[in-house]
């Protein structure tokens, strides 16, 4: 079974600063995908960034980047130049290639302080 662990229930960061959200996972699969989704107060799930396990290069999307450590089964999200609109719950998710089922972590509530 796949499990995803987010060990930081809550975090805060000053506006314009950088913050890193941690995520670890457990799987016996060799090929899979990892995702970070953002859930603002509206509760819509919004894709932030995606990483293919077979790619060694860390994914980046503007101010968002990941540190993917496959051997350690770690997938952290770095948000640079934090903005007030980044305040949200962030979920790490794992997807195996067969079945496409997502396994979500418990989330990290991020607050950006002005």
């Amino acid at each position: 079974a796949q499990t995803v662990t987010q060990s930081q229930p809550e975090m805060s960061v000053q506006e314009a600063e950088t913050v890193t959200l941690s995520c670890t996972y457990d799987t016996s699969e060799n090929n899979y995908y990892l995702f970070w989704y953002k859930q603002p107060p509206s509760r819509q799930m919004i894709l932030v960034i995606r990483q293919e396990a077979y790619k060694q290069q860390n994914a980046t999307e503007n101010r968002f980047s990941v540190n993917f450590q496959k051997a350690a089964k770690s997938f952290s999200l770095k948000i640079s130049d934090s903005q007030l609109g980044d305040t949200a719950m962030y979920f790490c998710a794992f997807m195996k290639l067969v079945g496409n089922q997502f396994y979500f972590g418990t989330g990290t509530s991020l607050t950006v302080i002005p």
Partner: protein
Amino acid sequence: EPEVTQTPSHQVTQMGQEVILRCVPISNHLYFYWYRQILGQKVEFLVSFYNNEISEKSEIFDDQFSVERPDGSNFTLKIRSTKLEDSAMYFCASSGRETQYFGPGTRLLVL
């Protein structure tokens, strides 16, 4: 930009009643999913659907739940006899390949 839509946005029902939650996936997507999120908890997988049949389902998805793609655009989740513990946010998602795009959710409250 295409997006997944869900109706209704909110649904209040009495325990024991049947509810149908509706979703319109992104038009060229082939995989469809339902997830639920009980308030304050993580998002949980319910079921995935591909080629007009269930491809995978979780332990939560028991005989009270069913899914259907009644036409070329809609994807529905039916709960036959709702229980108090079915109160949650229900998300539909669709994907072409690996990235799943989520709808805005239906907030279901069972009284």
